[in-house]
């Protein structure tokens, strides 16, 4: 389905995750972050978002454990930055699919 975010029409699934990561930009990230109740994105948020996009582009499976070991963010920081669903919300803001793993 189509959705207009930050003045751009993008393709999203029924949960609001971008279906085409190439349509993403930082304005879209900021708009999704506001919708998700994360508020203004800081450099710390963006570091996570960029890392997620890099990993996704490489086809890596993302888990909360791998994020904590990435050196980009600690587990505690990740939970503080994206309260209420660290991996789900950060993935949504990063314009990548919802993580499918259980870990």
């Amino acid at each position, binding site marked *: 389905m189509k959705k207009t975010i930050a003045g751009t029409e993008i393709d999203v699934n029924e*949960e*609001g995750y971008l279906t085409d990561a190439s349509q993403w930009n930082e304005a879209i990230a900021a708009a999704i972050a506001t919708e998700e109740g994360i508020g203004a994105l800081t450099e710390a948020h963006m570091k996570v978002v960029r890392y997620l996009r890099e990993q996704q582009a490489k086809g890596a*499976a993302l*888990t*909360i*454990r*791998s994020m*904590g070991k990435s050196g980009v963010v*600690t*587990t*505690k920081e990740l*939970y503080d930055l994206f*309260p*209420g*669903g*660290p*991996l*789900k919300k950060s993935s949504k803001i990063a314009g990548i699919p919802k993580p499918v*793993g*259980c*870990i």
Partner: protein
Amino acid sequence: MSTPDDKQPVKKMSIIVSRGSLDGIYPALIMANGARMEGIEASLFFTFFGLNALANKTLDHLKVSTVGNAALNMAMPMLGLPITMPFPTVMGAIPGVSAFATHLMNKEMEKLDIPPVREFLELISDSGGKIFACKLAMDMFKLKKEDLMDRVDDVLTVGQFYEESAGAGTHILFT
């Protein structure tokens, strides 16, 4: 996202862990971590043999139970055997067999990015999940708080655990 009134989300999982084998402990750790990842509060209450997962002496050496474990089957893909039969209990009793089964399982779990027990408890603790030990079971096994790994938040009585679990939307799960 809107949630209909008749479908209130789970707010908190209070999980009681009473078994001390590797296969008895992992499901609780996975459910607790999964809850935190969904923004659900999580508490783990370790009682009876579940304390094996917290005691520094045992927690890095937990084993899969190969004796009297009817669910363990030779057909498990990780064994790569062309037979289907329950794992013979007499075989499970041979020294080293439980260690071998544990080794196989740990290897498969590592592939799925499931951490070892100590790291898993640290992950849950870092995510804001709470880790409690049962006072009665501690007394029974003659354990003190300093015998337990450092992420244990508190030693609680049953009553304190229920108090800790208070609130609409809490689910208590016994494993």
